[in-house]
């Protein structure tokens, strides 16, 4: 810490000699903003949330949500990790469809260029699909 202070003092004179002679306080503003922002973000968000939100807890409200039915058993139950793989695969191919939409809308203007670029994109995804298939990620057992 003392070394830092020492350097800050020393560099002050450097900048004074440098072109434009930047003023010391302004020069270090970003460093302070840097620290201030880092400290402020969690404090401010938590404080605002606390101040703004209505605070009225009651038994039914605090119950875990389970499609409107009274929960049965613990929410901490285990379920098979296969759901996780399926979910990831879903996300990948879901995003693929999202990319297809803007191309479909603009297909007439983009002509052959758009078509070929899209086919390249699909070809890369198909390689991924073959890979998933061969690795057995699509088999449920």
């Amino acid at each position, binding site marked *: 810490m003392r070394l830092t202070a020492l350097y800050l003092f020393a560099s002050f004179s450097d900048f004074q000699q440098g072109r434009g002679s930047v003023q010391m306080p302004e020069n270090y503003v970003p460093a302070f903003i840097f620290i201030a922002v880092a400290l402020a973000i969690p404090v401010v968000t938590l404080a605002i949330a606390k101040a703004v939100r209505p605070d009225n807890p009651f038994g039914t409200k605090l119950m875990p949500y389970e499609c409107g039915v009274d929960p049965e058993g613990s929410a901490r139950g285990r379920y098979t990790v296969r759901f996780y793989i399926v979910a990831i695969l879903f996300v990948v191919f879901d995003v693929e469809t999202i990319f297809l939409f803007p191309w479909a809308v603009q297909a007439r203007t983009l002509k052959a*260029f758009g078509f070929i670029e899209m086919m390249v994109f699909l070809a890369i995804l198909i390689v991924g699909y073959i890979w998933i298939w061969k690795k057995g990620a699509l088999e449920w057992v």
Partner: protein
Amino acid sequence: MPGFHRGDYLLALPMMLLTLFALGVLLIDLLLDRSSKVINAWAAFAGLAFSAAAVHNIQRAFADQAARGEPSSPFFAFSGTLMVDRFAVFFFYLFLAAAAITILMSVRYLEVEDEHHGEYYALILFSVVGMMCMAAGNDLILLFIGLELMAVSTYILVGFLRRDRRSNEAALKYLLLGAFSSGIFAYGLSLLYGLAGSTNLQQISMALGNAMAPGKARVVPAVALVTTAAGLFFKIAAVPFHQWAPDAYEGAPTSITGFMSVAGKASAWALLLRIFLFALGPMRPLYVPILVFVAIATMTGGNLAALTQSNVKRLFAYSSIAHVGYIMLGLIAGTAFLPNPDGIRGILVYLLVYTFMNLGVFGVIASLRRRDIIGDELDDLNGLFFKAPTEAVLMLTFLLSLAGIPPLAGFYGKYFIFLALIESGHYALATLAVIYVAVSAYYYLRVANAMFMRTAGDRVPVTISPGMWAGLAITGAATVVIGIYPEPFLRMVNWSMHVAQNPTVAQLLR
């Protein structure tokens, strides 16, 4: 106007070839049985060679430009999103070399770990594609996609030893902190876009030049700067944001630790230089103080933490953090408005020599891995000189080079950076850095002490595969040759410094 332009594809060819080969490796791997997985390594190697040829093609275009007597100007592709200049070509070669050496060192290591899969090589190639986008991006979107492609590939590679708890833990920590830092970085980029109304680096630079005119409020530019910088500091593992590095480096497969610490770091630096010199160029008076604070913290934290480590991979993780601190000094050097060209030259030289010496170190550590020994504790290096003298001497070369002892390559990186600091009058900072270099000699020599002056715990000979020998020979030769005869390498760095039309950089090079 969208459409096919031949030039676009010529400039993107290095990346396209790597992608093609990576996909090829994924498919070939499905057909190979366990004993012939080494074919994947050859295929990946071929991909790197083809890509290097494509980069050489771009390099020739620059030579033609010079032969016609034109001033060096970058080539743009895909409506200006990709900008290949000499700076980018330098980094392309660096990434390809690092990946090639990593592959040489990996084959045997993966066989010992019993995790020899084609995905490993495919992911290395994909991460190199990401790194190339980071070095040649001229658009925030492309830079960010490149960063994520590199990072996601590395997350998986860190966790590649699926049955090893440490590897899994490292991957999870790295993923969470990496995602967090990418979020902060993206937030900074969004503010830059908000200020400039464009994702193009030149446009942003111009907009920031206006925003920095005297008498204007600088709060939003300052917040944009701070968040962008914080995201970048995470990626290069500078001190307030370095916590992921020791864990990730320790848990990752050793070959990947080497790859991350050189190629990953060099690509993050390429991105940082692109953003700080090009887009944020006009904000230099604001970012230099931040860099000074972070550089001092990084040198202090890295060097002092490395002193007490007993795990070699962790020790070199902290050592690589300390090196980031020195490299950062190269960007600080200069006046309040312009960086010192020697400083930037120093950064490039530093990254070049660091690639070879650090890969060499991790190669030696990886070669110590046997069925029953992980080989990453300091005690595992005991008496290495008596078991494998050549390897121990090579390791000593790398260690001395990392410490910056003159006849070796590491000296030149530090030389240019300290020279630039002194030229621009940062005497206090230069003194501090030199003191820390002396401190670093202690922990490097501690490793040497274990190798040469202690007796080995066992008599099992160290077996080194031909690939590993090739890797160690290349890194060792580079470390010695750059140190003794640096001229061609300095010429290469000077060549790549003829960067761009950006006002800041153009002024810098005049």
